[in-house]
């Protein structure tokens, strides 16, 4: 791959991340919880004490200087301190909620990509048939439903009515498991419904796009050629149509990550899954702005990196975009 292409994409990603950090700084200045505003609301603080605290927090420096020190601190992973979880650095608060979310969405994405692509490719290939109508209809309904509604339906039906799965959390409270296997089974039972909700929510998007791009390729010359050569139908789909049609879906996966995590935040809320989503809602109700900003920064950077990876993969898969 051409070095210029990689360099350009890397530079773009870095510029975007810098812009995000600056936006975060501006938001921090505007927000009501900043130390200055809190102090100004208290009428009993003397001017001298106010000035002292301003100096202590560096608020008496000119804005550009504050910005530079903010950038420096952020680069070192210092995201400030949480209001709600007193004394705890934001980074630690985020860290404690990071893995449950990664497990839920990593697995959800994986399942959705595989099932969505298969479903979309099949219904596009057999377009006009019964399978196409049924598949497309179901995809459209899933596509129209917010993730948390899918989660709520699953919760009501499979957890509270049928009682097959637990209704909340990541593990059974107060239960000591004899073996690691028991613990994993318990975890899996808790994971199943939220994971299904995330996967179902995503499958609709991927299969709709996949179907559309398969339908696009159907009229292309190389597919006609492959058929004219007498290749079997399934082989034409797998070896000729699919590799080309998969590109838009591949990029959607990356572009989507921001929306997915955002929408899926709500799935965590439904199932009380102890990840970044429930953390967001807790921080929101406590107006814990440093934590909210930390979440925003974390997600934004994740999205930028995902886009970068997608661009690079795209460059490998499709040499034309490198130009």
């Amino acid at each position, binding site marked *: 791959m051409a070095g210029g292409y990689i360099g350009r994409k890397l530079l773009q990603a870095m510029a975007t991340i810098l812009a995000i950090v600056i936006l975060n700084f501006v938001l921090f200045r505007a*927000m009501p*919880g900043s130390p200055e505003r809190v102090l100004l609301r208290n009428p009993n603080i003397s001017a001298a004490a106010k000035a002292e605290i301003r100096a202590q927090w560096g608020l008496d420096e000119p804005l550009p200087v504050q910005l530079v020190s903010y950038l420096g601190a952020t680069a070192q992973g210092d995201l400030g301190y949480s209001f709600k979880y007193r004394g705890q650095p934001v980074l630690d608060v985020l860290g404690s909620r990071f893995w449950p979310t990664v497990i839920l969405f990593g697995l959800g994405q994986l399942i959705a990509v595989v099932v969505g692509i298969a479903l979309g490719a099949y219904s596009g290939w057999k377009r006009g048939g019964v399978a196409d109508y049924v598949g497309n209809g179901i995809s459209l309904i899933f596509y129209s439903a*917010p993730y948390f509604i899918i989660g709520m339906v699953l919760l009501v039906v499979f957890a509270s009515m049928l009682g097959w799965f637990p209704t909340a959390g990541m593990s059974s409270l107060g239960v000591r498991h004899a073996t690691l296997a028991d613990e994993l089974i318990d975890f899996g039972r808790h994971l199943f419904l939220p994971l299904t909700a995330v996967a179902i929510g995503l499958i609709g998007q991927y299969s709709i796009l996949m179907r559309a791009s398969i339908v696009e390729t159907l009229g292309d010359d190389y597919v006609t050629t492959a058929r004219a050569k007498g290749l079997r139908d399934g082989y034409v789909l797998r070896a000729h149509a699919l590799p080309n049609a998969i590109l838009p879906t591949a990029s959607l996966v990356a572009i989507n990550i*921001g929306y997915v995590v955002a929408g899926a935040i709500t799935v965590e*809320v439904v199932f009380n899954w102890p990840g970044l989503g429930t953390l967001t809602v807790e921080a*929101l109700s406590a107006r814990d702005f440093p934590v909210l900003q930390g979440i*925003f920064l974390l997600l934004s950077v994740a*999205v930028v990196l995902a886009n970068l990876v997608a661009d690079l993969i795209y460059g490998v898969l499709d040499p034309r975009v490198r130009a």
Partner: protein
Amino acid sequence: MSATTVSPGELRAARLRLRLRNSASFGRRLLSRPEGLLGIIILAFFSVLAAVPELLVGALETATTASGSRLQPPSAAHPFGTDRLGRDMLNLTVHATRISMVIGLLATAITVFLGALIGIVAGFLGGLVDTILMRITDFFLVLPTFVLALILAPILLDIIGANAQLFGMRVTLVVIVVVIGVTSWASTARIIRSQALSLRERTFVARARVIGSGSGQIMRRHILPNVVGLVVANAVLVFAGAILTETTLSFIGLGDPFQPSWGQILYAANAAGALPIGAWWFMAWPAASIILVVLAFTLLGSALDDLLNPRLRARR
């Protein structure tokens, strides 16, 4: 002079007739597609609910005027069941239709206005203006705007004060409208820009310039009318997105309990712990409404896309 002169009034009337005939035939073609027809029927149904909720189910029930006892399953008196305060779910759901649709409509208006403005200016003026505006647009496209909306909403709320009222709407809802509007215009701007870019090179624009029209006038009188179709098609999809965003923001607790939207009811259902105890009717109606409305907009959007994009027409 041999040519018959036409008065400006006659010209305007003729133009109007042509436009009416065009839109009538466009409407017929839209209705002749099953997905377009289904979308319009669903939207018409919910528009009626949103227009006259009092006429259909009476005034919005509150904690003090609740007509039933708490968390009752559907019965003859309350065909949709009751919520945790004993309010009739049918009453709540119909009233929430108005809130959700109005928020969606206003947020769409802001989104499309910003997107069209930025897209037309960037595409028509080009050069440095275009570069700067498109960098900002790309930034907003990459950003997880939902999370940005989620941070902006409480900031704005705390600055304005959560109990104020603006234009008869609770300020919470105004903030949601504004936040959705300012965070979701980017894709509209991209689409409109590409169209403006190609319109700029057309002869009629050059002609307008020759007779001395300024850039502002050309954008208003020549570019804007030519992107209106695209703007409308895009607005349909933006509306679906706005409803989804509003629902999600309300669901995580940014809605207003005094003017409940569908998302707000779902928030209440979740917060009250209604689901683990099997009170499905607390969530089923607003959830079904959300899915139906978003589905309707998506169907309508795809029908419009087919009509406006001749390349696709042959394929299906």
